[in-house]
Structure formats: C-alpha cells, structure tokens
C-alpha cells in the first residue's frame, strides 16, 4: 500500500534566493537540496552526520544537512557550496584549495569549503591546530589533510589582507 502523499510547504532563503519547496515531514535537508532543488554540491557520504560531506550553513551555523529536517529551515537562510563563490569570484578558500592542490577525488571538497568558510568567519586567524579541530568533522580519505590545512591557513592570510 502506498502511503498517502503528505507534503509540507517550506519557504527559506537558499543561497540568497527566496525559495519554496515541498517536502515530507521526515525528509532531511540534504535530500531536499539534492533531489528537489538540484543543488548536488551537497554530498552524502554517510547520512549519519559522521563525514561532513553535506556541511551547509543554516542561519550561518555549520550543520550536517543529513541531520537537519528540511522542514526545520522554514524562514531560515541556507548556504550551500553553490552559494559560497561571489558570482564569478571564488571565495579565497576555494581559490587556495585549487592553488595548493587541496583536493584529490573532490567528494569532501564542498563540505570542506563550507566548513572552512565558517571557520574563517568565526576566527580570521586560526592556528594550525584550531583549523585541524574545526575541520575534524570533515572526513577526507585522499589527501591526509596536509594541503587542505595549508590552503585554509593561506586563505585566512589572504582574507586578512596579508601577502601569502
């Protein structure tokens, strides 16, 4: 037996744009972003909040989109990896990840970009250790994190206006 369709209407600001979508009460934000809004940059590695590939900002708070119900973002602002670059201009975190080769397969990269942006907004001058602890929720199996951490610290430098 099919269950009766039971959809909720939700309005939120997604990457700066007023957006309305329908979701079922149990549907998580990650699924809605990917399947309803075609924002496939939010990746699903585990669906249990352990890998950080689905990191997004909800009202500027860093969360795993697989652990947030889509209905919870009603009236809120959601920022995904697609909303991090400013038009044609990459965010320094994105630019530095490219310059340092801070990605290999790239599946964790969207989550790293979102999490690192949040870090640098909270703390414009993190130590290596602070960057490592902040990004400890973003699993990367390819890089050993070396070039990711270097890229994030370099991006912080750029954002502070210091020469590389």
């Amino acid at each position, binding site marked *: 037996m099919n269950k009766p369709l039971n959809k909720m209407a939700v309005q939120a600001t997604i990457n700066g744009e007023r957006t309305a979508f329908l979701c079922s009460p149990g549907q998580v934000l990650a699924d809605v972003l990917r399947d309803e809004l075609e924002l496939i*940059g939010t*990746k*699903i590695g585990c669906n*249990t909040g352990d890998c950080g590939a689905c990191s997004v900002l909800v009202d500027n708070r860093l969360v795993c989109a697989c652990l947030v119900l889509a209905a919870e973002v009603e009236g809120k602002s959601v920022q995904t990896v*697609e909303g991090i670059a400013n038009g044609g201009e*990459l965010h320094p975190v994105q630019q530095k990840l*490219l310059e340092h*080769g801070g990605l290999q397969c790239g599946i*964790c990269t969207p989550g790293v970009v979102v999490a690192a942006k949040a870090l640098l907004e909270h703390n414009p001058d993190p130590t290596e250790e602070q960057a490592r602890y902040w990004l400890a929720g973003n699993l990367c199996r390819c890089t*050993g994190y070396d070039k990711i951490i270097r890229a994030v610290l370099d991006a912080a430098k750029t954002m502070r206006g210091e020469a590389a």
Partner: protein
Amino acid sequence: MNAYQEFKTIGSRPVRPDGLDKVTGRARYGADLNMQGQLYGHVVRSPHAHAIIESIDCSKALAMEGVLAVMTGDDLVKPGDEMLGSGEGAMALKDFVPMVMSQGKVLFHSQAVAAIAATSPELAAEAARAVEVTYEVLPAVTDVHKALAADAPILHHDRFPDDYPEEPTNLATHISLTVGNPDAAFEGADVIVEQTYSVPMCHQGYIEPHACVARVDITGRTDLWCCTQGHFAVRHFTSAATGIDLGKIKVTPSEIGGGFGGKTTVYIEPLAVVLAQKAGRPVKMVMDRGDVFRATGAAPGAETRVKLGATRDGKLVAVDVDCLMDSGAYNGAPAAFPAYMATACYKFTDARSTGRSVYTNKPKIHAYRAPSIPQVTLGFELAITELAAELGIDPIEFRLMNAVEEGDANMMGAPYKRIGLRECLEVARNHEHYKSPLSEGVGRGVAMGYWINAGMQSSATLNVSSDGHVAVLTGSPDIGGSRASMALMAAEVLGIPFDHVHPEVAPTDSVGHTDVTGGSRTTLATGEAVIRAAENCVAELCRRAAAEWGVEAGVVAWSQGAAHYGEHSLTFHELASRAGNMGGPLTFSSSLNSTSAAPGFAVHICDAEVDKETGRTTIVRYTAIQDAGKAIHPDYVEGQMQGGAVQGIGWALNEEYLYNADGVLQNPGFLDYRIPVASDLPYIDTVIVEVPNPLHPFGVKGVGEVPIVPPMPAIAEAVCQSTGVRFRDLPLNPPKIMAELVDL
C-alpha cells in the same frame, strides 16, 4: 635514456582543469545524475552470515502499488570457471556473480539476495521488507584459524586447492616460492629473528558510496552511469553478470569520490541493469554507508610469520616469510602478492616466501592500495628493524647494506632496471628529520616499502580545434588529479600552453579500451598513450608543414609549439586553423598495452608519542620519501604520498573490522570505524626522489600505491620506542596499548 630530457611544462603545478567544478559543487559524482522516469532500486540483504536460501517469495512486494520489478540471483548468469578482468581486479566469474547477488547460498552477512525497483526510495525500502526469504542458517566462521580447523564449517564444498585434493577445505589459495636453500642458510646465520605479526581486516573507506543509474531499451542497449575506477571493467563485469552483450553496454563514468582499489569491481551496477530491463524504466541505486562497510570489498586481515637470519656484520643471509590472509567469502586471491613481493626490497640468495588465503564468512576482500603488501610488510619490516637492533646497526644503515639495486632480482625473477630505493634511503639518512633529536617520550620508526606497479592497457584521443586548443580524451577516471597530468603531458609534447589542453574522461564508446585507474598505472600508461597520440599529432603537423614548404617531412623540426625549417615556421595555432585546407581534421589516437611499468619504492620516518595514561598515540612528525621517476604534477604526487601515509596511520592506530560470533560487523559506520581526521595528524612532509624510469618516455614511475606500504611498520616501531613495549599486533589502539602498559 629517456626520449625527453628537458621539460618546460612537466613538473609545474598548474590548477587542475576539473578543479573549478569540484570547489563550486558542480562536479557530478555517482549519485548526482537522475534519468527521466527513473525508479529507485533497493537491495534485500541477508541477516545471516552463512545460510542456505530455502525460498524467496517476492509476491507481496511485487503486488505493492509502485513496485515495478523484483529480481533474485536467478536473474543473473550462472557462473562457471571463466576468469574476468585483469590486474588487481581479476577474478573468477564464480567468485563474482554470487558476491553481487547470492545464488542459493549466503556466505556473508548483508550479502544481496534480492532487489526491488519502485517509484520512490522509501517505497523500494518498504517493498524490500516485504520480500520473504527463508534460510537454513549455518554456523559462521570469521577467524582464519578457526576456518582452517578440522571441524570448521565449509564455505565452498566444490573447491579443492592444488595441494589438498582429498576433501573440501576453506583454504582458498596456497603459493610457496623458494630460492636457494633457506633452511641451510639459517644454519650459517649469526643472528636469527623469528616473530609473528598481525593486521586486521579494514576498509578502503572512500567517502562516496557506490551509486549508479541504468537504462536498458527493448533491444538490450544499455546506458549505465556510475562511479568507478574503470568503466571498461564495469562494462565487462556487468555484461558477464547479466548476459547482455558487452558491445551493447555503454558506461559513462561519473566523477569518483575515492576508490583506493575498492571501485575496480561492481556491486550494484548489474542489479540496476537487470531491474531496469525488467521494469522498462531507468533504475537508480545508491548504497548506504552501512552496506558499503558490510558488503563491499574490504582489505584482508593477515598474520605474517617472519624468520630472518643475518651475519654479525649485517648481511641478510636467510629469509622465510609466511603470510596467512583472510579472503572473505570468495576468492579474492590476496595470497600471491605477498608470496611474490614480501622480500622485494632486499637482496637475498636463500629465501622462502609463502602466501595462503582462507575463506571466511565475511565480504569478499578486494583490492586496497598495494593489495596485501602493507599487511605482509608490517611483519617483514618490523622483523628487519628487530634484527638491526639485535645487531646494533642503525635501521637505515642496515637497510642500505641489504637494499636491492639495479640488476638484483626479487621472487618474480626478472632483474630490476633502474630503481630508486637506495636513493630514497640515502635521502632518509641525511634528512633533517632523521637527524633531529627526540623529545622525552617520543619514539622514532623507519620502514620502507615496495609495490610492483602496473602497466596494462590504455588509450587516448586528441582532437585539435581550429583555434589551437586540444581536447584530450582518455578512458581513465580521474581519481586524484590525473586530468592535470594528462594535460601537462600533451602540452609538453605539443609545445602549447597547459590551459589550451582540455582533458576529458570519455565513456566506453568514445575512446579505446582502457583498464582501471589502479595499479599506480594511470599517469604512466594512460600518460604514455597521451604522449604517443601527441607525438602522432606533431608528426602529422610536420608532414603538413613540409608539404607547404615543398620539402621532405624529415627535415622539418618541431619545437616551441611550431614546425621549423630554415627560415620557415608554422605555429601549432596556424596549422590548426588551416587544417581544413591542409589535409583535414586533426584527430590522433594511441592505444597501447604498456610494458614500461617500473616498481615503486618508499621510505617513511615517523615520530610518535604514546600517552602513558590513556594509551593514545600521537603522530608527532612524519616524513614520506618516494621515488616517482619523474613527477608530472608534483602537488598530486605529494598528495598521493600524504594520503597513502595517512591511510597507513589509520590502519596502524585505529581501523579494524569488528565481527561478533554470528559474523555481523559491529562497526559499519564512520563513527565506529574511525578513519583519521584532521586533528589526529601533523603535516605529512614529503620528498620526491626522481630516478627516471628508463622504459618511459618521460621517466615516470607509478606513485599511488607504495605510500601505504611503509607506515604500519614505521609507526609500530615508533610506538615501541616511545613505550618500550614491542607490539606486533595492530591496530595500536588505546585499549591494546594500555593492556601492556598497565601490566608493566
């Protein structure tokens, strides 16, 4: 002598061509494609690790509204003894089809037994729960020793290894190689070390779960999109499992979110194809994380007994190594690699090397980065370190006294050509890290490693546009920056800017056959195809310029991106823009079966500190040194070295498959199967050594796999130096370390 001696582009570090899509979220991975009208597949998995399937009743599931197809193992080909695939992914059909979906017997927990296609993922999951399967449950065995015991439950009653023809056994393979007379040689040794070392089963741990979407039309023409290390292998395996003609299947590889060997086979792809064929609609399937851990190719656990004999002055004179590996439910053939390669870093005259693998009720093991060699190397390298300590010789010095060089042979017989092991050891010995003093409580370990590296089949096609830009099509999925390497190599040969080259990973019907991205072969072999195709392009452009100038083609030279003869010159751009009037479109291909592979060698230095109150090990400093032959894009060579080292750190300190007595995996998620996170680690320092491979036009050697080989013994030694306790069984997690420290 390499064909190319000086480089303009090779060795530089441009931004990778696919980077922009990957930092902005546009890149499409396995789960990121939807086909119009698609259904969602869901797999029914066995709750038992060992059972006979008595019946499968799908009628209730099929009767549900929105359920359009069901399948069981009966819908797949009945396998015989044929072999499939090549290289690290090679396997027998009978070890593959039932692994994809059981055909009467269940041999590991969460093995697929049926699958459903329905109009939504939720409905497919609900319908899967309505499939009624009755099992005759059999006792499960997950330990290799218990599996070899006389009263063990037998997994395969129809298999008899060569040496054991009398009755069925769980021994899957047994290979033993002897050179000289090791037993007599031990008699002449002054010092002998004999110990046993173990490593647990672990998982490749790629972050992207397997995902695919398939469409099959009424004539059997199949479109398959999936994340894979090799779409030609997917086509081959999917054809073999479904019976659909190979040539009717087109596989388009998505971006791939990690693989490390684990995506050189298929799990859900044949199921999606069969369901799509039955339903007459596309079917999308995405594995969940738990099923990735429970039911896809883990890396074998291993126990290695090593006996080494040396003379007082530090010459290794006798070797006996015996590696017992866990094969899981089917034959993943893990035993041959250690038998052939365990001794590969050392000169020897008298050695015996044995590899055995054993069936257990666990998922069939599959390739993981230098398959089986990290496991056996833990034992071999730790034993070498213990032997050096007994002799009172510095561990690097002892290795230098016994390391292989050009002309030496390993167990495979053929002498090494120009290899870089000694160079790596000398870099390590002279490295500031190795000379630096140790803080109180910090221990230091050193180890080295070998991996054979593959050549195999690759193809490339170059299409030159009229504006002088070049598309480079290859069949190698880009798992770690290989597009950048391909573009660099094409730009080097053609003499054009890097950003005028546009590398693409092409579907199966758009480029020649290409084996998997694996075996550390992509930059070497697919790169060689790109180099050859670019050389074909240069030769044709020289011919065209010669015709224009009315001279013999042989007198025209190509340099700086232009054809030259005397006062004449024609640039690449000019020749490209005039192609329509000078002979037609410029398209060049090269396909080859590369014979230029050269082995990889690495030396790692690790400083570690064990917290004596918690047993937690902190990696304080780490340096990876490796011979890359020639680094095409050094960032991505360093990245391989760092990533491999950190996977080794995870395996050494944490990673372990934990099974209960019923054969159910107890830690099938990233919370409990803990891979290293950023805060666990220091920077991983790297030194790329370049001893050119004489067989390759640019001197390239494969780099991807060997960096996972030295970490475990290097870390285990550092932990020993920090604690004063010799640990020989990994992982060195806090409970294991505390159990020893508390006893002290």
